[in-house]
């Protein structure tokens, strides 16, 4: 029966080609605009690490005096101090945890073969790789001993390995970071995430770092941060050591907590730690305050999806509604003009529900065509987005779920728009049309 209805729908489509094409165009434009903004929204809001986003938690500490304000909604800074980061990183607890920050170097081979280039680097602990799911192509992370002795060792990404060594196993080889020789201990596979959720400081959609070096090098090499540094009180800082001991906030900290008990235990630990620090006189606080947010909470808290984008999604759905209203009007005209034909079919025994179903199949077909053309329009729109703003190039694309969503949204919205005309036409009284014939 469905195939028969499809056949009828196609005949009806061909009988009024202009109106049919107009309807398809109206749906296509509506879907095209909606899918353009929805795709960007989808990419921005997508869970970057679905299987453990509820386990990874960003750690925030309010290691500040009572009454000190911060600009976040809960008044807690998003980064932590170097001393807190290093202590929590090194302390022996039964959870994976890692401090990290962003820095950068000039990468070169001390020869004229490779033109020196700038690369940002992540200074972190070896736990970073398993926590954020970074599998190794060659080698592995640095050893505990290398960490303790602040050895100049580096893990590089697949793309850097390609650029410097033509993709061969480079473990054990050397590379210059600024004017120091580093030994490569591992090569990770390309890290394919859209949202740099582990460090949202310098733009949530910038590319991930391509170099990873041990945390202990911050102190040993006096590394400058390439991220943000915030402070809340005036401190006289003349030397690097004073900077490390200061209350400046410039480190990120993540912990992997597998269940509610873990979260409770780690929370208790932080409570004790902060109380202890307050007793030591670092800051004046009545009660300790901290926050543990999982990946999705963290992204929402940091407003990763921009207000503009939410507004655009809202407006484009309203826009789609206008397109649907037009389609509804056109369908009304088209279906009611066909009333005599329907009258005959009803008289010959077609039930109301059969007539209704037949018309719904017809509007679904229109929706399907509109959705397909709409994908084309959305691709054009996304191309426009990419060419305005290269920063969006990874975001302004449609993944498979969006490609499937486009015709689905088109069909569903057409069914909604088509239901009223289909209902009106199936109520047709056969007697009226039989009389005049």
């Amino acid at each position, binding site marked *: 029966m469905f195939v028969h209805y499809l056949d009828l729908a196609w005949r009806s489509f061909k009988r009024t080609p202009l109106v049919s094409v107009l309807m398809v165009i109206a749906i296509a434009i509506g879907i095209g605009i909606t899918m353009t903004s929805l795709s960007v929204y989808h990419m921005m809001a997508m869970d970057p690490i679905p299987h453990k986003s509820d386990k990874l938690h960003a750690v925030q500490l309010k290691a500040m005096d009572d009454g000190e304000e911060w600009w976040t909604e809960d008044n807690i800074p998003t980064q932590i101090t170097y001393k807190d980061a290093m202590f929590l990183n090194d302390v022996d607890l039964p959870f994976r945890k890692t401090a990290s920050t962003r820095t950068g170097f000039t990468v070169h081979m001390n020869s004229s073969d490779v033109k020196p280039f700038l690369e940002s680097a992540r200074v972190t602990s070896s736990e970073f790789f398993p926590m954020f799911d970074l599998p190794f192509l060659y080698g592995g992370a640095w050893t505990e001993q290398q960490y303790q002795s602040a050895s100049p060792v580096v893990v590089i990404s697949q793309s850097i390995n390609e650029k410097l060594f033509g993709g061969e196993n480079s473990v054990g080889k050397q590379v210059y970071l600024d004017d120091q020789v580093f030994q490569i201990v591992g090569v990770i596979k390309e890290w394919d995430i859209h949202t740099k959720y582990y460090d949202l400081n310098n733009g949530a959609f910038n590319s991930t770092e391509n170099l990873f070096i041990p945390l202990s090098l911050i102190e040993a090499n006096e590394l400058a941060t390439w991220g943000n540094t915030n402070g809340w009180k*005036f401190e006289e800082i003349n030397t690097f050591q004073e900077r490390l001991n200061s209350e400046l906030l410039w480190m990120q900290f993540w912990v992997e907590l597998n269940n509610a008990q873990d979260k409770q235990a780690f929370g208790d630990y932080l409570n004790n730690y902060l109380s202890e620090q307050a007793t030591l006189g670092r800051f004046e606080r009545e009660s300790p305050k901290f926050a543990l947010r999982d990946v999705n909470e963290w992204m929402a808290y940091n407003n990763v999806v921009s*207000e503009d984008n*939410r507004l655009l999604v809202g407006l484009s759905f309203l826009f789609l509604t*206008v397109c649907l209203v037009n389609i509804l009007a056109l369908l009304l005209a088209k279906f009611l003009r066909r009333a005599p034909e329907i009258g005959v079919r009803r008289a010959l025994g077609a039930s109301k529900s059969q007539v209704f179903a037949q018309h719904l199949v017809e509007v679904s077909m229109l929706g399907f065509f509109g959705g397909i053309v709409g994908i084309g329009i959305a691709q054009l729109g996304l191309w426009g*987005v990419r060419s305005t703003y290269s920063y969006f190039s990874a975001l302004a694309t449609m993944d498979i779920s969006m490609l499937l969503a486009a015709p689905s949204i088109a069909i569903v919205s057409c069914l909604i728009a088509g239901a009223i005309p289909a209902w009106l036409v199936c109520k047709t009284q056969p007697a009226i049309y039989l009389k005049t014939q």
Partner: protein
Amino acid sequence: MLEIKPIFNALLRSKVSTFLLLVEIAITVAIVSVAAFVIVDRVNYLQQETGYPEESLLHFSVLTFGDVDRMQQIELDEQMLRNIPDVENAVFMQDVPLSGSGSASSFNSQPDPEIENNKSVRAAYTAGDENMIDTLGVNLIAGRDFNPDEIKYGLSMENPPTVIIASKAFVDEMFPEGDGLGQTVYFGPAPIKIIGIVEEMKGPWLQDSRADNMVIFPYVEVRSFDHYVVRTNPEERTAIKRQIEELMLANYDKRVINPAIGFDEAKAQYNAGDILMARMLMVIIVVLIMITIVGIFGLTLFNISKRTKQIGTRRALGARKSDIVKYFLVENAMVCIVGLVVGSAGAVYLGTLLLQEYSLPALDNAFILYTAGFVFLISLMSVLVPANRAANISPSIATRSI
């Protein structure tokens, strides 16, 4: 005269299509007024004066890895840059305005923030030598420029800078009486005298609530990145931009030179999100208006085709062509006005929603008014063609097949 009562009665007989027209007009008014408001808001933001001759300025950054006296290298580089033909001036600068990256701090009216009556004003700051003001091309409206002997080379707590040049916005916020020139402010515990005031000089972040507060210190300090700003003849800027990497590497090669970028280009990058938003909203408005025109056109055609006989009868009974056109215009105007009222209410509601949820300013009701007027006009215009067609229906239609 306008036959409102019979038209209204006739409308009641075609509820669905009347309702559709009403919904279409209402949504169009709501979307267009909100979108137009956001666009105007963004365009005003994008076109604001920054105080710099953006088309003449370019900047680039350098990361040095070789072992060299960088302080001395800075002098050599500045000399080399100034000697390029068509370069007006060049300077080494700590942070570059409009670039989206920089430093900011609170400046106090008292040496210790704890002191009562202390006034604290936040401002972005940068630093460089006596060529800063000239290179940036900003307008010094009061006081004087830095003297060469005021520039500190290397920064330390023991030898802090003692003078600043600041933007008028910062000085006026700190000293609302307007007597800021020559006054002292505190940067941490260090006293600093305001020796010059610049009319307009935006900081690195245009979206900052204190984007106009900018302070220039007279010191030169090497950090991980060295930034240079070059003011050129605007016609030659593109050509000069291309030479910079080569010339800088020829001067000293153990470093990486990031591509030079114009101030206007850096500003466009920083504001790319806003430019994109304005463009997308413009596309939505234009397409929406086109669709609405086609929609009203189609609905009226549909109404007319349903009423061919009625129109023919009226013509046969003596109605003039202009009466028929007037009938459809009045009918459309009636539906349209209701739609406009509903749509305007929707726009006001959307506006308050945006005000609460987002950092958007309150929707200006003038936008709704203008949009409503505009939609009313295009709606009447899109009725005109089908109405004329209806007027041409022959009275003989009425006598057929009855």
